[in-house]
């Protein structure tokens, strides 16, 4: 383990200590993939080193950081040119559950989230977990404040519908052994 004890590096370490976990959480919730999330966090700190001159003193640091984080993810997506699929490489949600039901609920919710289009997942995760104001999200995404709110609501509604569909799929599986959980949207309602 190499140590950084002084000077600028030490201060970059402070930034790392403060932001690497929130960034990892954001990435892992959006991509559902632990490995690529860690890669992306690493990439962000590399970009901070590279592009620090573009930081405008006197402006808030966090929006600058999140812009870098977003660009890093977009670049990575461009390179891979595919969405990360949910199934085998997913971060397995390990919830501190005290019941099988909650565990199943967590798993379903996770799957529903991963079925959302990435841009909806992103805005929902920014709004729900990153403690960013809608104004900050609007600045980050380059859109109007009302557009952010509309998108949050649409993403939430889609998540809710997907979650419900998956729940019904589980129920249907119980009734009809061997049935897939990918039931048509409104079947059985």
């Amino acid at each position: 383990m190499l140590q950084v004890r002084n000077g600028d590096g030490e201060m970059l370490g402070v930034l790392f200590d403060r932001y690497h976990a929130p960034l990892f959480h954001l990435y892992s919730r959006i991509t559902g993939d632990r490995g690529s999330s860690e890669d992306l966090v690493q990439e962000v700190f590399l970009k901070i080193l590279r592009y620090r001159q573009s930081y405008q003193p006197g402006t808030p640091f966090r929006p600058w950081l999140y812009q870098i984080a977003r660009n890093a993810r977009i670049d990575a997506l461009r390179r891979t040119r595919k969405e990360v699929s949910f199934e085998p490489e997913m971060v397995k949600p390990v919830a501190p559950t005290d019941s099988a039901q909650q565990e199943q609920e967590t798993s379903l919710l996770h799957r529903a989230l991963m079925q959302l289009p990435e841009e909806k997942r992103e805005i929902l995760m920014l709004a729900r977990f990153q403690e960013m104001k809608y104004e900050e999200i609007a600045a980050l995404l380059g859109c109007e404040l009302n557009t952010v709110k509309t998108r949050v609501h649409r993403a939430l509604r889609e998540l809710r519908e997907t979650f419900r569909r998956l729940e019904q799929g589980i129920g249907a599986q119980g009734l009809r052994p061997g049935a897939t959980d990918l039931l048509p949207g409104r079947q059985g309602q």
Partner: protein
Amino acid sequence: MNCEQIAELLPDYLRGNLPAGQIRAVEQHIEQCAECRDDVAIWNKLAILPAGQPSALLGERFEALLHAYEAGREDGRAAAGASSAKQERAPARGQFDWFRSPLAGLAWGLAMLVVGVLAGTFASRTSPRTDELAAMRTELTGMRQLVVLSMLQQQSASERLQGVSFSRAEAQADPKIIGALLHTLRYDPNVDVRLAALEALSRQSSQAQVRRGVTDALQYQQSPLVQVALIDQLVEWRDPGARDRLRELQQSADLNPAVRQRAEWALSKLN
């Protein structure tokens, strides 16, 4: 209200940003509307999603990267210092010199080892590139400044306090840091942060910008606590320009009696 109207309010409702009247309207609606109620429920349910924690490897990769960068900087400085002596023997050496030093080589080797292992594990993912690390050599000369400036912008008062604390590390602070501290002294909403900024600035009294800024800050303060601290500082510095500011302060109609008394005392000291 119908669902469409509620949809406009819901994002703010979920974040607790609505005034009480609208909260009641939303809650009345969701009591009767299962769809909107489910929207709220799924938002709340998201809390059960565990985020997971990054592995220790992430920290190790970062440290390897950082060390490679630091070694590059140190080597770059040394190379700059010795460049005239070495010019004849190594006229063609360029910006990648630092990779050749033993320390940088070790750091680079370790960084690449970690990256290599990861590249093997996660084949399609990103890793530090040579040109990027080389580019770092010429960058990042004021990370402390970046940190202080960013921390002074944080929403949390404790983080801003920490930012002020970091600023004290420099015996002779950078003008940008001074500017940020003076701005904090004037406009920070938290009294403790303003007091800490004053304390940090008091260590930079040799700079005219600091004395002038602190003196001018007096007229912006509403908190008696900060006003008294500023007055005491001006007395300590015995700055002649402080008298006019103190007299102006005395003329404020709604001045706290204790502050007025302190200003009188200060003027008697300065005269």
